[in-house]
């Protein structure tokens, strides 16, 4: 598995994500500055990290979603490439139109920073194949704007197509249908608010995020 991490001004989980990718794949990812217009050849997975890119100006992820590199990321996704957007990365993916819906201010208005319990809703993706359906995992969230909204028809469609990857067991932000992470139609783009890269090694206090990276690496070896 060859990986890349997109870096925006204000990204702050880029290195954590790089460590998780490196540990799963055995090689360090390419770190790609947002002003680049092309991706290196041979990349299998692109990570869009958490943080506060462009200071969350206008809307979280809005400016980043229009950064030069994002055209290449959209082309990569359209060709069937794997894209993982975590936290601010999820916001960027919705703003870029690569995933449906939007992420709004938390219903409680507070920044929420804590470990939460998630339920794995589907095994049917390279990201989630390493879990059991219905498995509860502990992963941290750290966000102010993680309140997932989408019109009822879209939520119904996500449900019907088994594209809800993770739900919160105790909803921390008001997200519709307790949604914590969703998949694209081809199941190769995952956006999620919780941070699996912060729980991907026992020395971090838990490793419930590790299967996500591991199963991705396994899927991309066998393909």
């Amino acid at each position, binding site marked *: 598995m060859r990986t890349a991490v997109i870096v925006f001004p204000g990204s702050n989980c880029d290195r954590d994500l790089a460590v998780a990718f490196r540990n799963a794949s055995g090689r360090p990812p390419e770190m790609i500055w947002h002003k680049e217009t092309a991706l290196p050849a041979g990349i299998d997975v692109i990570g869009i990290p958490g943080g506060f890119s462009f200071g969350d100006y*206008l*809307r979280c992820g*809005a400016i980043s979603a*229009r950064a030069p590199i994002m055209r290449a990321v959209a082309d990569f996704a359209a060709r069937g490439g794997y894209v993982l957007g975590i936290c601010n990365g999820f916001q960027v993916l*919705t*703003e870029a139109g690569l995933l*449906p*819906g*939007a992420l*709004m*201010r*938390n*219903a*409680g*208005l507070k920044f929420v920073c804590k470990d939460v319990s998630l339920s794995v809703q589907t095994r049917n993706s390279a990201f989630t194949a390493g879990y059991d359906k219905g498995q509860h995992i502990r992963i941290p969230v750290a966000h102010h704007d993680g*309140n997932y*909204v*989408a019109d009822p028809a879209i939520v119904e469609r996500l449900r019907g197509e088994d594209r809800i990857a993770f739900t919160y067991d105790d909803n921390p932000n*008001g997200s519709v249908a307790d949604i914590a992470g969703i998949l694209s139609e081809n199941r190769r783009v995952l956006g999620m608010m919780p941070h699996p890269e912060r729980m991907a090694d026992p020395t971090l206090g838990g490793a419930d995020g590790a299967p996500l990276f591991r199963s991705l690496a396994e899927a991309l070896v066998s393909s």
Partner: protein
Amino acid sequence: MKARVFVTLKQGVLDPQGEAVRHSLHALGFEGVNAVRQGKVIELDLAETDEAQARRSVQEMCEKLLANTVIEDYRVEMLP
């Protein structure tokens, strides 16, 4: 010429910030406030001098960046 863009949440989209402002207004004694919706005003100074052309251009800006039409509506006002 100048343009002013008003970006507001669509009807039906919950506005937790507006709700917090309403609570605060009630706490200050403004009991008659039934609802508060919070939005943004964006002012643009444009090189374009033709109003119709400028309006079309601002509308395109709204669709592409200034508003997230999944959750927001926008209204454009042209100023002399």
